[in-house]
Structure formats: structure tokens, C-alpha cells
């Protein structure tokens, strides 16, 4: 990170703090050699297993005719719509409830701490197991319909054969899986707010909802934004949830990530598969750049 950015980020109060010193302004020969030697292993991995695959993917998907095929196909348009719905609804639901839940977990009773542990389970357990369980819960003979029938006498629908129900199932499963993580992050953010501020707000008569709106929200705004960006990036690339929960059923809940893999395996068209996901790359890169800038605008919490 450049020093200007650091200063900008840290704000005026730290302007006259001396610049972080390095070992030496210019590393002497031997040490420079060592430093380069230390970086080389990762740089090799980066080039061979991240930059090269990316370039290879771009090359595979470079033919314009691929995109003409894609944009003309219904399944691709369905996948774009589904991806937008999946990401747009999923990110916001998950983060909004995580924000509220993190407030609940700020309470200091032992009971609430135990609940925190319970609520972390989905995040701690392997994703596939949870998603497969969701899938089996939602199939026609699944647990959900059994419960509906036994307890309420309702005959439930085949959840995964209606577009909105299947999309909803994906969203519920993904929220179930990811919300604990965001709750934890936002809880950490809330805990970083000094107690004095709460006390000051208390003296000024801001409690409960007003304290939340005027104190917590502005202070958590940057963190919340970072989480939103990161969560959006992860959800755009999310393959597991959709693949394992709805599996693309009833034919249109596929998102870009699953559609790409489907093109490869079901249709044997790897180029088309890569093009399907690479078309979303500009969005990812834009979000990524925003995210990196946000991350470097560090210590904004206070």
C-alpha cells in the first residue's frame, strides 16, 4: 500500500506520525537476494496456478461467437437472472439478519453465549453435508413435507420443482450457511466500538433503536460495506449451494457458476462454459477493486 493512502486512511490525527520504517531504505545486496528468494515460491504459485489459469480461461473464452451463442440461449439468460436474484437477495438478507443477530449476541448472559455457539454450527460444519441435507429435506418425500403432513395435516408441494420455491431453497440454504460468519464479523465490529461511546449516547438519551441508528449503523457502515462486497463476490462464484440444493431444478435456477460447469460436463463444451462465467468477470473485478480500496482504507471504524 502506498504511504499516501495510508495517511489518507488514518486521517489527519496521524499525519505527523513518522513513516513506518523498513529494515533499510534500500536493502543491501545479500538481504535483497534473500527477500527475493522468500517471495519466489509464492510468486511461482501465483503465476502458475492463478494468473496462468485466468489468462488461459480468458483465451479459451476469447472468441466473440461464444458470446453470441450465449446471449442467444435461454438457459444463459435464465442463469443471469437467477444469479442476479440469488446474489441480490441472498447478500442483503444474510447481512441484514447478521447485523440484527450480532446485536443480540452482544448481550452478556451465559445463555446468549451458548446460543452464539449453537448458531455457529452451520458455518463450522462442512458445506456439502449441510446442503445435501437441505436437498433431502426438500424433496417430495423429504423431512419438510413429512413434518407438514404429520403435524399440520398439510400436503406440501414438491419444493424443488417450482422456480421460486427452488430459488428460495437455494437462498435459505446459502443464508443458513453464511449468516453465522457475517454475524461473527459484525459482532467483532460491534465489540470494537468503545464502551465510552455507548455511555455518551446513554447520557444524551439515545437508547435502543436510536442508539442503533445513530451510533452503531454509522460506525459499522464501512465494515458492513466490506462484508457486502465480499459476500457478493463469493455468492457470484458460489457453485456448491445451487449445485447441491436445487441442482438447477426445475431447469432455470442454475446460476452462472453451475451453468459453466454444466456446459463442460453435460454438453462437453468447455469453451462455452468458460465464456459463461467469464462474462461475469468484469463485475467481479469491479467489486474486487472496490473491496481492495475499502480494505486499504483501514481503521475507519474509528
Amino acid at each position, binding site marked *: 500500500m502506498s504511504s499516501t493512502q495510508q495517511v489518507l486512511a488514518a486521517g489527519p490525527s496521524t499525519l505527523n506520525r513518522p513513516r513506518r520504517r523498513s529494515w533499510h531504505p*534500500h536493502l543491501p545486496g545479500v538481504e535483497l537476494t534473500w527477500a527475493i528468494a522468500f*517471495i519466489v515460491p509464492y510468486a511461482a504459485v501465483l503465476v502458475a496456478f492463478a494468473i496462468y489459469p*485466468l489468462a488461459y480461461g480468458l483465451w479459451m473464452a476469447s472468441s466473440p461467437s461464444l458470446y453470441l451463442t450465449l446471449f442467444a440461449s435461454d438457459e444463459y439468460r435464465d442463469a443471469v437472472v437467477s444469479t442476479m436474484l440469488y446474489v441480490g437477495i441472498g447478500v442483503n438478507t444474510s447481512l441484514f439478519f447478521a447485523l440484527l443477530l450480532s446485536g443480540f449476541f452482544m448481550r452478556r448472559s451465559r445463555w446468549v453465549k451458548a446460543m452464539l455457539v*449453537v448458531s455457529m454450527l452451520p458455518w463450522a460444519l*462442512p458445506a456439502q453435508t449441510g446442503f445435501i441435507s437441505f436437498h*433431502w429435506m426438500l424433496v417430495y418425500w423429504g423431512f419438510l413435507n*413429512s413434518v407438514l403432513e404429520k403435524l399440520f395435516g398439510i400436503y406440501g408441494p414438491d419444493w424443488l420443482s417450482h422456480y421460486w420455491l427452488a430459488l428460495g431453497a437455494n437462498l435459505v440454504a446459502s443464508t443458513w450457511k453464511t449468516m453465522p460468519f457475517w454475524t461473527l464479523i459484525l459482532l467483532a465490529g460491534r465489540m470494537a466500538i468503545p464502551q465510552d461511546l455507548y455511555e455518551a449516547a446513554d447520557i444524551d438519551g439515545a437508547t435502543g433503536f436510536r442508539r442503533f441508528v445513530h451510533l452503531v449503523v454509522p460506525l459499522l457502515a464501512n465494515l458492513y460495506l466490506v462484508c457486502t462486497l465480499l459476500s457478493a463476490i463469493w455468492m457470484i462464484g458460489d457453485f456448491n449451494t445451487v449445485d447441491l440444493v436445487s441442482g438447477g431444478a426445475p431447469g432455470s435456477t442454475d446460476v452462472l457458476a453451475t451453468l459453466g460447469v454444466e456446459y463442460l460436463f453435460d454438453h462437453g463444451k468447455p469453451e462455452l*462454459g468458460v465464456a459463461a*462465467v467469464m462474462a461475469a468477470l468484469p463485475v467481479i473485478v469491479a467489486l474486487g477493486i472496490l473491496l*481492495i480500496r475499502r480494505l486499504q482504507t483501514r481503521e475507519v471504524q474509528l
Partner: protein
Amino acid sequence: MSTIAADARLATRASSRAHSSERLRRYLRNLGTVVLSAVIVVWTLVPLYNMVLISLEPEGDVFTDHIWPRVPSVESFWGVLTQSHWYLEHFWRQFANSLYIGVMVTFFALLFGTLTSFAIGRMRIRHGWLVTNAALLTYVIPASFLAIPFYRIMQNYGLANNPWSVIAALVAFATPYAIFVFQEYGRSIPIEVDESARIDGASPPQIYLRIYLPLMAPALVAVGTYALLLAWNEYLVSVPAPVLEGEHDGAGGARAVPQQRPVAVELHDGDRDHLRGTAGRDLLRVPPAHDRRLDDGRGQGLTPPPGAPRRALG
């Protein structure tokens, strides 16, 4: 006199009213806690309960309409442990694969992560930020976007059918985060520590080994856990590559049971026919249960792969 008494009485009444409203508030608060806790417990545990429920069903009895295990049976668990089902022939080998891949990914992510963050964050090599930013940028590109190019590239590298293809890919995904965390954590260690060591004549590798690594221990544990979980849970990247098993089964062993064969081999052999259409979808559904047996080892693998029941219905 009487006015004072009246005042006192008023004050008591007011305070008792305040007291009761306080009590009401506390009551509502507790009620809210109980309701919210109930919601959290149901929301969190229902999918897990369903998992346990299915695993306790006797074999072949999966989609019964029970909502509690009527005849709990550990048959499925026994089946996993003894590899007695065709679907679980290679459970222990697959378990060992997961462990091997997990440990290797953790080791290399930590090694490369600390080395890089040491050179960039402590030694402050010039243009080090280029590496950091490139790392972060690759970190935000989803693995699923690179999966297809990966399959091709691993063949170019001669790593197809080799666990190291999975390890390399996962190290590439895990290390950027490691570098980021190590650099953040490293800021809390004063640079003067390094300087005094240098004055005493320590070389960079010595400083790295004797000062940097010990001081970074908490971050190492955190990132190590992350990398291990990432590797253990990875699914997409390992779909075509979990090739440790099958290869050593002798000729034909792997061929006899298509589901046991890694998808990469299927594709590589060019017999894509049975990968097309729904049958192909189902084959592709096998790997989650197939590669990471422990995760699904709670007996779930004994049931038809997801997707099958849906098709059977109509």
C-alpha cells in the same frame, strides 16, 4: 406534616410504578430472548437433525415419512467404517486423501504466506505491494470461475490424476488470505525487534525462523485452521482430480464401477456419452460424497445421490 406524608406516599407509588414498568420491560426482554433463541435453535438445527435422522434410518429406508428415527440403526455408520457398500469401497483411502491434501495445503499456505509476508511486510522489498495486490485480486476471483481452465492446465502440467493438482490449486487460493492476515498481524510486532536482531548479526532466514515465526504463532494457528477447512471442504476443484483411488485398484477395478471413477478420467477418456443428460448430472453429484467421505460419512452416501429421488418421482 400531612403534606410530607402525602409526598412520601406519592413518591412510593411512583417508584413502585417505575419498578413495575422496569419489571415488565425485563419480562419482555426475557421473552424476546426466549423466542429468538427458539428461532435460532430451530433454524440452525433442523438441517442437522435431518442429517442425523437419515443416517440412523436402516438401509433402503431413507424417504420414509418419519420425523424421528423410529428404529434407530447404526447400520449406515457400520457400512461406512467397514466399506461394505459398493459406494463406499474406498472410504478409508478417500479419508486419507482428504487428510493428506488438507495437511499439505495447510503446510504450504503457511510456508508461502509467512515467507511472502516477511519479505513484503518486514523486509519491505520494493514493489512488494504488486504481489500483495495481485494476490488479493486472485483472491476475489471465485474458484468456480477458474475450475474449467484448471482442468485443462493440470493436464498441461502433467498433474492430471495427481493429488498435487488439487493441492497446488488450493494453495493458490488459500495463500492470498494468509498473506493478508499475516501482514495485518505483523503490524503489531515492532520492527525494532528485527533491527536489534540484525545488529546482533542475524541473517534474514534466522530472523524469519527465530523471531518472525514464533511471534506470529497465533496468526499461524488461525490461518492454518482456515486453510485446513478450505482444503477439507473443497468440492469443485477436486471433482475431476481425486484420483488417488481407482488408480491403484488394478486394471478394470475402477472401470467396473463408473461412479468410482474420477470425472476427469471419464472426460479424459473421451467417453462422454454417459455424462450427458441427466445421467451425467447424477454422476457429477457423486463426488461430494465420493471424495470427502468423512463429511458425508454419516451414512448418507448409502442412499441414492441427490437428484435421483426427484427423477424417480416423475
